């Protein structure tokens, strides 16, 4: 005898419905926890961003309403030139680094699809930078780019006079040094993801295309790239998001300097938080960036889905 037989007919529901509701009830505590973890900090941030509260004000954060300033933080934000130039600088770094990392990674991955002697060793060396802790990488490049450092020594081999460029104290060169470091550290990730994509391109389709008279470049454009589209999008998305948050290597190498020459969004927020201690304003910046980024991400996803 099944349960349905002993229940009154009016209470009968399809079994699948019951199962779904039971499942919802059973996972409810976990769902609430996740919701709390995700939503609570956002709400707290929104609350603080509407006040002039700071940890030095003597009140704990729930009492921040005492420093209520309506939307003053948000209107300050619009006229904050330092913020806008930090944002511009971050976007500039993304626009230069991510394409270079992508092209280098794709080129290397193309080489690694075929076998060659010493491939395994080359492979290990190639992905090593990714394993280096970013702070350590920052110190490595900090030392490499010293005016008496190895970079200048190597350049000196090609010039009649010894080179003594002060890389990290020059406004433009510091930015170059920081971007070189980022490219060094993150090209391997691009390489790995794109290699996985390249290996997944069916070889008989490439052969079929070749037999139909397609040149290597035509095969790359008509077979390899369309087949790898998803992987390429994922690789680019990961790097754009990560690069937007660039901090550790950069902060150790230049601390955002000289002046504000290498100050990115993360470095700026860090400085406002730890040096200026105006937390209400920091919360407003962070929330504004989150909203803008979310809108951007949704827009990009919709475009790509088409």
């Amino acid at each position: 005898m099944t349960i349905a037989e002993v229940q009154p007919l009016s209470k009968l529901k399809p079994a699948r419905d019951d199962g779904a509701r039971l499942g919802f009830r059973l996972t409810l505590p976990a769902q609430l926890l996740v919701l709390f973890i995700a939503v609570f900090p956002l709400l707290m941030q929104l609350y603080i961003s509407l006040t002039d509260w700071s940890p030095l004000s003597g009140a704990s954060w729930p009492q921040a309403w005492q420093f209520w300033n309506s939307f003053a933080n948000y209107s300050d934000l619009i006229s904050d030139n330092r913020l806008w130039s930090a944002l511009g600088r971050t976007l500039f770094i993304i626009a230069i680094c991510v394409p270079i990392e992508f092209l280098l990674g794709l080129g290397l991955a193309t080489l690694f699809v075929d076998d060659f002697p010493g491939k395994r060793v080359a492979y290990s060396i190639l992905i090593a930078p990714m394993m280096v802790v970013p702070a350590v990488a920052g110190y490595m490049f900090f030392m490499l780019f010293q005016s008496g450092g190895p970079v200048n020594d190597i350049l000196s081999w090609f010039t009649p006079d010894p080179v003594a460029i002060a890389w990290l104290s020059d406004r433009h060169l510091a930015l170059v040094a920081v971007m070189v470091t980022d490219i060094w550290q993150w090209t391997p990730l691009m390489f790995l993801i794109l290699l996985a994509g390249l290996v997944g391109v069916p070889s008989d389709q490439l052969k079929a295309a070749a037999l139909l008279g397609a040149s290597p470049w035509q095969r790359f454009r008509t077979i390899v790239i369309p087949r790898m589209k998803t992987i390429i999008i994922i690789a680019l998305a990961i790097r754009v998001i990560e690069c937007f948050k660039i901090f550790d290597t950069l902060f150790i190498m230049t601390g955002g300097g000289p002046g504000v020459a290498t100050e990115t969004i993360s470095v700026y927020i860090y400085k406002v938080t730890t040096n200026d201690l105006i937390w209400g304003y920091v919360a407003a910046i962070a929330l504004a960036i989150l909203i803008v980024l979310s809108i951007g991400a949704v827009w990009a996803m919709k475009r790509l889905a088409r």
Partner: protein
Amino acid sequence: MSAIKLEHLVKRFGAFTALKTMDLSITDGEFMALLGPSGCGKSTTMNIIAGMETPTEGRILFGDRDMTGVPMGRRGVGFVFQNFAIFTHMTVRRNLDYGLRMTGRPTAEIARRTNAMAELLGLTALLDRPAQGLSVNILQRLAIGRSAVMEPAIFLLDEPLSNVDAAFRAVMRTELKSLQRQFRQTMVYVTHDQLEAMTMADRIAVMDHGVLQQVGTPLEVYNTPANTFVARFIGSPGMNLFTGKLTQTDAGLAVDLGPLGISPPLAPATASAAKRANGDVVYGFRPEEVTLAQPGEPALALPLNLTERIGARTILHLGTPQAEVRAVFQSGTAIPAGILRLAPAPAAVRLFDAGSGAALQVA
């Protein structure tokens, strides 16, 4: 000129020899089937013709042109892959006109030739559908059309029908043959299915273990197999083969088949060929070429083990497990139970050298 000539082709993969000194001439407009069990080197031969593999030794000529070093894209051969290799991220039209687009033909010509090919293969209604998710039978036509639209003088097909269902295979066999008649290309067709080879090919090249065993028309290969491998491989079921000693009987020269008894006397022509044997011979006859012996007629007396009725024909399994004989009769034939007396048609008996396996040719 689209004749193909393979000269002393050798292909080694490391220590493994896939192809041992292959010589083969395929004439212009001929339909040649490369037939053999898996691993016999037929696909390797095909890949070398297409340029996907480089031979370790030897040359490939198309007409008088040496193509050995020519890369695969410049050989102008059509190739149909076993798994079709359809570009699933494109539409049917983009697949069909791929080669024309890549080689930079004028737009009007591309459209005209693509539409004509789609019409011929019955793909017109599907032209704007994505190739992803189409049935195997459609993909198969598309794969053939994609190569055929380039109008190659040489068309290579690598087991193109092994993935499609049996009913469609029968249709495609006739279609492929009529396509080839229409375009007069030289076709090389790799298969392990002798039915495909027998029905479509002008000539069959039978291969085994990287060695070309015999080249001939389907009937030549069936009637006068060059050796015991071809005899056993061609025909369904293959030829009955038993090793025995030549013995002189009252009625003439015969073969002592040991446990199966002494064979009926050999026909005079076969007997004269038998004289060329050094030592033991292999006595062979086709399962289809036997009759039930009349009383008094010389015959092999064999116990009947199993009867397979497959519609028009009945296959009998006779003899002992060590020496199994198969015989095929029309299904109407009355088959007595117990011991059957079987007489191979004297003219259909083939003798092979027991040592080399080569046929002892009837002069």
